[in-house]
């Protein structure tokens, strides 16, 4: 690193220093957006509190599935509404254009953004699991917490990749916001109504293999490893496919330029 005031530039800046600067800035921005982070935790908490009765637990498939559902909604809201909208707004305002004229490569700018969002996802998941386990009188081992973190990273990546696909395919922040809400509602309904079979077996099956359904299945699978089944393995595979497909779309069609 050079000190300020030195003469004109002769070499590339250090990549590690560049990434650390970007990551710190994105972390500060995340802290500045803590209201949005808190809101992403409020919805899962409402789910946990309103489903603490025995009847609710039975109709929603048990405690583990309820906690999975709560985490899913938290990750969906922060990734598909929060992340996607922030990226669309920053692109629209020219924040990315300003960064792109610096020596930082575009992959570094995006990795920093995604990295910070992964941290937000982990915070949401851990808070929801800890509170969920307390409300539903569930005792988790350190190993189970580690698995929760691992699965949350996968689930967060599924919804982040959907968010990335949204900002890749749509340019205007208003359109990203509107489309994000519609998809959020559709996936949320698939999670609550579709999975309990109330809308018939076809919808139940579609729900089971939707991003919401596969993540919830995976989540309850890791919290009950003794009963790990083929369905859980296929859910893991489905999650990976969702990540690859949506992230591929989001990266391939992402435009850095202001509309």
């Amino acid at each position, binding site marked *: *690193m*050079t*000190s*300020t*005031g*030195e*003469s*004109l*530039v002769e*070499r*590339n*800046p*250090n990549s590690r*220093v*560049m990434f*650390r*600067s*970007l990551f*710190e*800035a994105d972390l*500060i*921005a995340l*802290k*500045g*957006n803590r209201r949005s982070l808190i809101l992403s935790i409020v919805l899962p908490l409402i789910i946990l509190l309103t489903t603490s009765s025995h009847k609710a637990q039975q109709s929603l498939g048990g405690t583990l599935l309820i906690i999975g559902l709560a985490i899913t909604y938290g990750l969906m809201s922060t990734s598909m509404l929060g992340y996607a909208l922030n990226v669309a707004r*920053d692109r629209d*305002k*020219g*924040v990315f*254009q*300003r*960064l*792109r*004229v*610096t*020596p*930082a*490569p575009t992959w570094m700018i995006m990795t920093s953004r995604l990295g910070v969002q992964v941290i937000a996802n982990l915070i949401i998941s851990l808070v929801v699991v800890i509170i969920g386990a307390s409300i539903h009188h569930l005792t988790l081992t350190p190993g189970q917490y580690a698995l929760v973190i691992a699965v949350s990273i996968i689930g967060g990546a599924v919804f982040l990749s959907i968010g990335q696909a949204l900002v890749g395919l749509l340019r205007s922040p208003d359109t990203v916001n509107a489309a994000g809400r519609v998809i959020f509602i559709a996936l949320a309904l698939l999670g609550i109504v579709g999975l309990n079979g109330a809308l018939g077996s076809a919808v139940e099956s579609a729900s089971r293999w939707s991003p919401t359904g596969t993540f919830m299945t995976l989540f309850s699978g890791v919290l009950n490893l003794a009963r790990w089944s083929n369905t859980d393995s296929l859910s893991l595979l489905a999650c990976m496919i969702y990540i690859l497909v949506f992230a591929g779309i989001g990266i391939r069609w992402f435009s850095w*330029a*202001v509309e």
Partner: protein
Amino acid sequence: MTQPREQNTLQILEIKDISVAYGTKTAVDGVSLQILRGEIFGLLGPNGAGKTSLLSAVEGLVKPIAGEVIVDGTDIRDNPALVKSKMGVQLQATSFHSQLSIKQLIKLYAGLYGVRMVPSEITAKLDEIGLVDAVSKPFKELSGGQQQRLSLLIATIHNPNLLLLDEPTTGLDPQSRRQLWGRIERIRKAGGSILLTTHSMEEAQTVCDRVAIIDHGKIVSCETPKNLIEKHKEDEKVKEVARGAVTLEDVFIGLTGGEIRD
């Protein structure tokens, strides 16, 4: 690793036959320019003439369909990071992370250019531009003139070899404009070269060593402001629009036409 090309030590920037297109629309059509070390070069043109597109190609924001951009002997395609580290850029409409304070923004951009700045250095820099009291404010809370001063400070935080300024004085009051000209002159004295776009003929005449007039994506003329007037003062179209002694603005309108562009 790519070796620097055979270098013309007098030139800091060489643009060779650059063409930029958006779909079927050609914005820049085979433009060639050279900016010399220590030179302040102005790019003039009506709206939509291709100024910002040409600058964007130099900045690496758009990929030209043809041509080369060589900064200090390095082609931007060979080593974009090195070329970008040698350039300071102030975009036409600058926006920074809205949650970051001025101090945090300076730290971010210093880091991106590999410049280490301790808090006292940041304070000293902000003092130079009269923003030391606004250190904790976010960018959006600054006035237009303050935003412009901060943008220029960030663009020059690494003492770039080449500074690119896209319409830097648009929207500034006369005092702020004069201050900016003073800063540009100081940057040149410190060894920097400047390429700026402007709509202000006064600015071009006062600040620039040479100017190029661009229209419909092509360079129409490139000279010192004085020579440009001398060269074109007898043109029929220039004489038609002149009211008294021929000015740079008369030459500009004579060469690019009087119709309003959007």
